[in-house]
């Protein structure tokens, strides 16, 4: 009889929905060893094929259960610069863990939780620290990286280890991209993100914050005037989409980006001890049901909204957010209004939102995405009280770099066109992550970063070998 996977200890729902401390508390040493003991150490490890950055999963687990923590973290770090992050936010259930053979007859091994455990243990015990790099070792070439989110950090780590001098340009005042401004503290503590980044700095990666590429420097200037051999663009999906319905410019209506940026990057939950405010009313409604929407809803609850709901036009089955997050949200008291579509936001005479007019939907035939497309039920309009409305229906690419970079093509949505190796249509310019694919996951951006790092290395090597080409 197979042993079930070990549950993750968590803060109780009624406690955690009032604080910003981490929800999942992590395994202790004993539980981690016990969970690692379930691993079958398959010869042909399918889990590894499910990992976008190709971590040697059986090996890090083997090291863990042999209590060789230094080797375990080394295995993780050799493929993944951000294991403490990935162990927390990767959708393991649809990647490594989905492939685990234990899952065929029982529950797959908790790979994500073990990755998190090893990364946290290593951080606490100061194991597997990045070796401090001497500047003269970084003489293979100079690479500029635009954006310090998961894609950019991955490229930076990989190229730095290969001996390149790497400079990351970040527009915000702290590095980390979506890991800092988007994913809430209670899911991904910012101290952990900053620790992982500090490890990259030890490797010799330079980070320049407050640099908005396209304005401070264009991509062309980085290559032609600032002496970089190649540029990687990993600027993510930072442009919020709105519904384009009446009332969307009322006070109390936020994009999820704004709401989360205020709460996370600017730490508004500590207002007035920090200066950036965030107004949350009594009744908050979040439009959309992706991970960002669920993050926003849970944040609104923690900021004191009495009632928080998620309004989604399809049914529960189609919700794009991770199941675990949806379950967490339900436990915390978030209400789901499914098959519901907002058509108008209604405000008072001072310009503040008070309610949302919605219609009921039903599901029709499957559309291009394979999901059944929602159709409006005529005359089903009703009012949903909401003094805070958060629009979380997705993000697009910021146009600043595509429009200021000559010779680099973007598609009609504004995403940069790049091949599977991250090559754009401009020589020496590479791109990966959400700016290429549209909004996706942290780990897929890291996978794209890994491919791009390899490709940048090959590009610079071949250019050095054939300088006239």
């Amino acid at each position, binding site marked *: 009889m197979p042993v079930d996977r070990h549950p993750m200890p968590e803060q109780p729902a009624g406690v955690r929905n009032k604080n910003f401390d981490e929800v999942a508390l992590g395994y202790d040493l004993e539980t981690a060893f016990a969970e690692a003991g379930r691993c079958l150490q398959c010869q042909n490890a399918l889990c590894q094929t499910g990992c976008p950055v190709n971590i040697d999963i059986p090996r890090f687990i083997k090291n863990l259960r042999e209590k060789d923590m230094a080797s375990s973290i080394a295995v993780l770090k050799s493929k993944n610069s951000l294991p403490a992050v990935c162990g927390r936010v990767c959708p393991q259930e649809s990647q490594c863990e989905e492939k685990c053979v234990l899952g065929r007859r029982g529950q797959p091994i908790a790979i994500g939780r073990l990755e998190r455990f090893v990364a946290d243990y290593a951080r606490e015990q100061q194991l597997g620290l990045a070796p401090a790099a001497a500047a003269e070792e970084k003489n293979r070439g100079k690479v500029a990286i635009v954006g310090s989110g998961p894609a950019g950090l991955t490229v930076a780590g990989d190229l730095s280890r290969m001996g390149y001098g790497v400079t990351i340009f970040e*527009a915000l*005042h702290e590095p980390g991209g979506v890991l800092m401004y988007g994913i809430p503290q209670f899911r991904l503590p910012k101290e952990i993100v900053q620790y992982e980044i500090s490890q990259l700095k030890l490797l010799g990666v330079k980070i320049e914050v407050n640099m908005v590429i396209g304005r401070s420097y264009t991509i062309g200037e980085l290559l032609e005037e600032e002496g970089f051999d190649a540029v990687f663009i990993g600027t993510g999906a*930072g442009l919020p989409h709105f519904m384009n319905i009446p009332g969307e*410019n*009322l006070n109390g209506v936020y994009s999820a980006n*704004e709401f989360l940026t205020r709460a996370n990057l600017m730490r508004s939950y500590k207002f007035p001890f920090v200066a*950036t405010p965030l107004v949350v009313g009594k009744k908050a409604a979040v439009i959309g049901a992706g991970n960002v929407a669920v993050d926003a809803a849970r944040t609104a609850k923690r900021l004191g909204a009495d009632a928080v709901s998620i309004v989604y036009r399809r049914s529960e089955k189609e919700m794009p957010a991770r199941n675990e997050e949806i379950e967490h949200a339900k436990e915390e008291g978030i209400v789901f209004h499914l098959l519901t579509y907002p058509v108008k936001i209604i405000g008072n005479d001072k*310009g503040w939102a008070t309610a949302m007019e919605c219609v009921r939907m039903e599901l029709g035939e499957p559309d291009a995405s394979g999901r059944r497309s929602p159709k409006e039920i005529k005359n089903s309009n009703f009012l949903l009280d909401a003094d805070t409305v958060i629009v979380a229906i997705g993000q697009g690419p910021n146009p600043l770099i595509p429009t200021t970079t000559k010779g680099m093509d973007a598609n009609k949505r504004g995403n940069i066109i790049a091949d599977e190796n991250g090559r754009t249509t401009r020589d020496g310019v590479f791109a990966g992550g959400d700016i290429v694919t549209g909004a996706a996951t942290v780990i897929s951006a890291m996978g794209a970063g890994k491919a791009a790092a390899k490709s940048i290395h090959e590009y610079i090597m071949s250019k050095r070998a054939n300088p006239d080409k």
Partner: protein
Amino acid sequence: MAKILSKREFSPGVKEYTLDAPLIAKKCQAGQFVIIRTDTHGERIPLTIADFDRDGGTITIVVQEVGNSTKHLGESFGVGDEILDLLGPLGRPSHIENFRTAICIGGGIGVAPVYPIARELKKAGNKIISIIGARNKDLIIFEEKMRATSDELFITTDDGSIGRKGFVTDPLREILRAGGKPGLVLAIGPVVMMRNVAAVTKEYGVYTVASLNSIMVDGTGMCGGCRVAVGDETKFVCVDGPEFDAHLVDFTNLMQRQQMYKEQEALEYSCGGHCQCL
């Protein structure tokens, strides 16, 4: 980090700072803005560039202490101190061409961002008629700079303590009524002023641009907090602006959105988000 190289007070609560910012000074163009964050607890404050010196590597900003963060800057930061974060240049530069005659209108500290635009318009061959206004004499800023770059300069104050008693729209209306046909009217100042300017010029069918000052967080197009209705579209002031066709801007909505954090602003005092007293 950006060091404050000079600081002077125009009037209580209105101060000018020169910042050491070589890269921004090299790259910025008239009409663009920067974002500052004074220290780790501070908020991100958008400020239009009032002047720049490419050779000296400096930019000038004029700050009106309207909220806690700007008060904190004014009270706690002096010459030699460093502002933790300075980002820019942001926004689209002003569109500069020869309109033949351009009327440049600045209200209150809005005169400061008008100045570099007026200077560029002058260089492009325009006749510059400037109208600067404020509540009273003490609040008129950049008078000499504006005089030097203008062919004609009008000053208006609410109380008549300098220039004419009245509003910036008074001389504007007279010029237009007398048959002056400027190719451009530029207005920067309080929203009410920009709205009133737009109403006057609309009667005469004169192309008018306003530079908007909405609430922002990142200033790079990421949050959408600065959105404003322009015609049938929603635009982001930070990346689509800050300048828009003033006849299309929904100023009422802009004014309402500027009030969004009024209660929160009232919560703290001059601690600029460093409140330890609660």
